[in-house]
């Protein structure tokens, strides 16, 4: 297990380096002069030069990358061109809503999808199974912003029981926090619920065919004991994998959901930065999201040992 873990951890190093190079190089894709573009039409030559120097565009690609990479390693992502504040500070300020949204969506998705998938597998072929899988296809097909608007129309406009948009920090009270979070996290969670439900069903179907399940049933164990005690445990690896994958998918969804619901999170920060071409912020946030992706995948791979003792060896 130790050797496996070390090898798995070592494998992330080249990926991280490549991600850093790609994210950094985005800046060089822009046609024309990014400094002039940022400075605007009225800018003087000195102003353009100042922005050029602050972005390091007057230096070579390599020395600029070394400087930026060195900063990243020390936890310094540079300074926003737009607001003049440190990128890390900007991100830190926006982290809470994003983390809350992601975790609550995942919670919704798992709470809906795992029982649904288990039940669909247990009663495979029944109308419940068909309905559940129909729901899954629908969940894949309705884009998150479309679902968001339908939910807003239903629960905030027609039946005004929830706020239309916005965010209330958890410190301001759990009630307002939850009422603002329900719609966005549900909307964001549905796509993942669809994915998790399908995989859970497939994994459970595979396990339910096994002899030890028949033995467990023959022993007279209750359905719940068989499904949760025996079957779910053995179907855990694909389910955990897909929950992990769906968690990484949430990262993209967050950007859209935060835009629809006007939530001041990292996703919104990213979109604003991209639209304003605030390069240091763009690089910082995309790097952060990518690191989250890489480390989540690492954690998923390493967690297999917890579910299957054979992998621990």
């Amino acid at each position: 297990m130790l050797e496996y873990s070390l090898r798995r951890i070592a494998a992330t190093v080249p990926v991280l380096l490549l991600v850093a190079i790609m994210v950094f190089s985005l800046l060089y894709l822009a046609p024309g002069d990014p400094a002039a573009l940022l400075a605007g039409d009225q800018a003087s030559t000195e102003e353009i030069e100042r922005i050029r120097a602050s972005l390091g565009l007057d230096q070579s690609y390599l020395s600029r990358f070394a400087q930026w990479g060195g900063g990243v390693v020390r936890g310094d992502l540079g300074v926003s061109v737009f607001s003049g504040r440190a990128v890390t500070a900007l991100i830190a300020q926006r982290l809470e809503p994003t983390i809350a949204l992601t975790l609550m969506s995942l919670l919704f998705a798992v709470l809906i999808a795992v029982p649904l998938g288990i039940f669909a597998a247990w009663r495979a072929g029944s109308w419940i199974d068909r309905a559940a899988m129909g729901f899954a296809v629908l969940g894949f097909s309705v884009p998150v912003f479309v679902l968001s608007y339908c939910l807003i129309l239903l629960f905030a406009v027609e039946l005004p029981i929830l706020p239309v948009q916005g965010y209330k920090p958890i410190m301001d009270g759990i009630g307002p926090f939850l009422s603002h979070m329900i719609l966005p996290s549900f909307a964001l969670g549905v796509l993942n619920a669809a994915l998790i439900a399908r995989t859970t069903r497939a994994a459970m179907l595979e396990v339910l065919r096994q002899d030890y399940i028949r033995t467990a049933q023959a022993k007279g164990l209750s359905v719940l004991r068989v499904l949760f005690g025996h079957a779910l445990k053995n179907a855990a690896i694909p389910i955990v994998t897909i929950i992990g994958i769906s968690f990484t998918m949430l990262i993209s969804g967050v950007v859209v959901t935060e835009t629809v619901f006007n939530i001041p999170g990292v996703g919104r920060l990213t979109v604003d930065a991209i639209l304003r071409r605030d390069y240091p912020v763009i690089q910082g946030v995309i790097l952060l999201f990518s690191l989250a992706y890489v480390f989540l995948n690492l954690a998923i791979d390493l967690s297999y040992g917890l579910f299957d003792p054979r992998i621990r060896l």
Partner: protein
Amino acid sequence: MSGPGSGSGTGIIARHPGIGIGAGLLAAMALAALAAPLIAPLDPQLIAPFDRLQAPDGHYWFGTDQIGRDVFSRTVYGARVSMMVGCAVAVISILLGLLLGLVSGFVRWIDEVLMRVMDALMAIPSILLAIALIALTGPSLRNVIIAITIAEVPRVTRLVRGLVISLRDQLFVEAAKAAGTRVPVILYRHIVPNMLPPLLVQASYVFAAAVITEAILSFIGAGMPPETSSWGNIIAEGRTVFQLAPHIVLFPSMVLSVMVLSVNVLGDGLRDAFDPRFVGRE
């Protein structure tokens, strides 16, 4: 186990109704997109200042937007954008992924490098990558297609590579090798034809993802140029008056969802018909 060739075409469609339903709906929408000038009652850009924010009625089927443009006509024209983006991204990503995956599956040192690059590309959230690419290169149909393709290619490459590796060791490939068949001929005659069913399924998922991504990009303001009638653009413009005139957002949203749904139903039907175990959404 059912596989391609285990029944006639109509038999397969009868056993997997999703194929017929999905393909039918999709064909209808493709026709509507092609015939947009005939179907749309009004010019999608025509501004009618006195008919702003009209609710849907007999004249304006989907109502009008805040400058009085006919939402139905705009939605019909929007189908063109989605169809073009979906088809272009699906075709280009499958071809590129096929090429890269074949090379990766057959040349070991390229495999190492290429797979790490694909890992890195997949680590960057696809929506963010696409928004960043478009914000930097400017909104246009071509850039939207390129940006979404870059995000989709790694998945196809991985699928193809996995298929190549499993096919490489199959008996019929070994036999061809033993008989002295050259690698390009093996690829052309034995490997690629066996990959077509799963690639076709994957193409439908790529199409669906591309249509959704285009809508998201335009919605966020980093997609099609704002004057274009794309579904994402119509929804983005409608969002400021959503509580006043929800129809501007809802109608294109519905059509968008139906298009993606029909592609997904078609893809799932094909997958069940072919039973390719490798294909997945991830």
